[in-house]
């Protein structure tokens, strides 16, 4: 009985302590913010750790880099930019919780991210209901498309990465130019691989491609020799591999070990990191892949519209973090820069930001020149990809 009596009083004590702490913070906070103009709060959700950390890590780093640059230059119309970044760990539940937190507790005016398509799809209902602009850093066209038949877009959702279909079109266009029509597909059985595979199958007839083999493997598989051996038996003219992570390197090594270099290999835009060339240990020579401008800033011709903006980003990022840029950081750059551009023009009003985003034209970003419209919340075309080939351990523009 004695225990039961003391417990509520301890609880009360803690509660009153918390209440006191909250009151003090509430009293202090107006004093702090009175000094400077109210900060513009932008939320971000990235998969910084976990299975998709290779996406979220550079995205977070890029967003922080941009925040620093903007605030150093005096902020947005005098208002400092305040980024609130959460890590969803690649988990859709945590992602939705983070988005809710950003909306309800942090009261941000726009959200960038998440990093993964599946997660981005899971937050659509939340952002639609809360009427908050969301610029996703994930690739699937489904993120912005409410109705695939009519092409109707989700009102509050935008995205910066190129769609898989654009990568597929860039690859098929290159193949057609070089007389390739018999191809094999290998893909990883995750959302990324499945999405790319379905686009490859969907667009094949339009470009006159015959798919002779359609092989899959798991994201943690150690060896793809069996799949490639089967493909070797079919002797296609080219292989398209659609995966991210270590498997896309292992597949390249197996391809070389099996002596299949006479069959050209194309990779998805997920191959866009020099780390992959290095990990392939010489086996990546001659691999083709479609890449956004920021991956190949150095080799872009000087008159390319994105030359300046990509070179500046690459320089700032490599100087600050001492690691090469990847495509994914570029997506976060585009997403945050678009939001900042809107904030500069219309201030922190959610509806006005959305309307402004929808009408941005000719915005030169890391991955292309964005032309948004009510019918296109991605704003890019297949020209946002350049075909490159691995030559002497580095990217070179493919002809």
């Amino acid at each position, binding site marked *: 009985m004695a225990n039961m009596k003391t417990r509520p009083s301890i609880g009360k004590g803690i509660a009153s302590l918390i209440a006191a702490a909250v009151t003090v913070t509430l009293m202090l906070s107006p004093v702090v913010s009175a000094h400077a103009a109210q900060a513009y709060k932008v939320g971000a959700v990235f998969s910084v750790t976990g299975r998709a950390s290779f996406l979220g890590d550079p995205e977070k780093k890029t967003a922080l880099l941009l925040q620093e640059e903007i605030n150093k230059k005096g902020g947005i119309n005098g208002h400092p930019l305040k980024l609130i970044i959460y890590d969803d760990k690649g988990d859709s539940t945590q992602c939705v919780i983070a988005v809710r937190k950003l909306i309800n507790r942090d009261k941000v005016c726009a959200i960038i991210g998440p990093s993964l398509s599946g997660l981005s799809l899971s937050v659509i209902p939340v952002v639609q209901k809360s009427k908050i602009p969301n610029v996703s850093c994930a690739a699937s066209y489904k993120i912005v498309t409410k109705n695939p038949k009519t092409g109707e877009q989700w009102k509050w959702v935008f995205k910066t990465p190129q769609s898989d279909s654009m990568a597929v079109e860039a690859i098929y266009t290159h193949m057609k130019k070089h007389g390739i029509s018999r191809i094999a597909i290998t893909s990883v059985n995750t959302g990324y691989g499945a999405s790319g595979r379905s686009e490859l199958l969907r667009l094949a007839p339009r470009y006159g491609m015959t798919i002779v083999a359609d092989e899959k493997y*798991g994201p943690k598989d*150690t060896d793809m*020799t*069996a*799949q490639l051996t089967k493909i070797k038996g079919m002797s296609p003219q080219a292989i398209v591999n659609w995966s991210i992570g270590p498997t896309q*390197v292992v597949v390249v090594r197996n391809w070389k070990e099996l*002596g299949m270099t*006479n*069959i050209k290999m194309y990779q998805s835009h997920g191959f866009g990191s020099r780390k992959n060339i290095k*990990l392939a240990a010489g086996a990546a020579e001659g691999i083709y892949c479609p890449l956004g401008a920021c991956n190949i800033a150095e080799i872009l011709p000087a008159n390319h519209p994105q030359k300046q903006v990509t070179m500046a980003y690459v320089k700032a990022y490599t100087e600050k973090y001492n690691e090469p840029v990847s495509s994914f950081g570029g997506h976060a750059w585009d997403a945050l820069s678009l939001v900042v551009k809107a904030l500069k023009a219309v201030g922190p009003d959610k509806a006005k930001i959305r309307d402004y985003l929808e009408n941005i034209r000719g915005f030169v970003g890391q991955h292309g020149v964005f032309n948004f419209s009510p019918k296109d919340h991605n704003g890019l075309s297949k020209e946002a990809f350049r075909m490159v080939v691995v030559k002497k351990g580095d990217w070179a523009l493919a002809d």
Partner: protein
Amino acid sequence: MEHMTLASQLLQYIITGVTIGSIYAMVAIGFNIIYNVTEAINFAQGEFVMLGGLVMVFFRVTLKLPVLFSLPLTISVVMAVGILLDRIAIRPIRKPTVLSMVIATIGASFFIRGAAMFIWGKNPFDLPPFSGRNPITFLGAAIQPQSLWVLGFLVAVVIVLTIFFDRTIMGKALRACAVNPSASSLVGINVKYMILISFALSAAIGAIGGIVITPISLMEYDRGAMLAVKGFSACAVGGIGNFPGAVLGGILIGLIESLGAGLISSGYKDVFALLALLLILFVKPSGLLGSAEVSKIRKF
């Protein structure tokens, strides 16, 4: 364009299957050693493999030590981790039951994975193969030299373990603990020490698995879980606690995966392996080489 005959394709599938299967077998052997002494499954076994690969990368690539030095160094480091695992996670359990030990190893596996992520980051790492990357062509199939190393190490592990368990006092003491821990302690065997030895030993075998597979498949911090699942399947197929069974089970699962992927459908290759596992467990619940009598008296 050259065409690959069905025979050489089959050979290629078999080579691939045996290589991957050898790794599963090494994981399965590691499971068995600890299971035989404690009757618990060590869910951190896959983490030993991951550590083996990444620690080897540190010695071989970062410090540029020759294989001859980095190999024993790596094995000792991972063995130390195994010993620590027993000391910190297993021994302090006040009333050790199979379930509490299993839960402790699951927790340890998360910890090791997290620590590896902090040390090495999230990117995969490469290791130079022991003897070149030029594949050997044999009857139209390409064999990576590293595959031969994988097989060779499996054979060496099996031979050394057989001698250890059959010919040495310590090996015999370990086996005695497996049969009856209370009786063993009555005849003067220090059971806690034997548990420690079993963790060190299975960590060493896991490390060898990681060292030999990394040049083929790269290694990153979260690869261990998948290998543990496959290794456990191999264990179950061969009969838990049975060493020849572990080798047989591992290679069988590797072969089914590879042949299933090549001949039927690569999308369902894990399904074939699990179907085989289910079938075997339906027909012979104690595993291919496991004995029904032994599994009856076991707690798990």
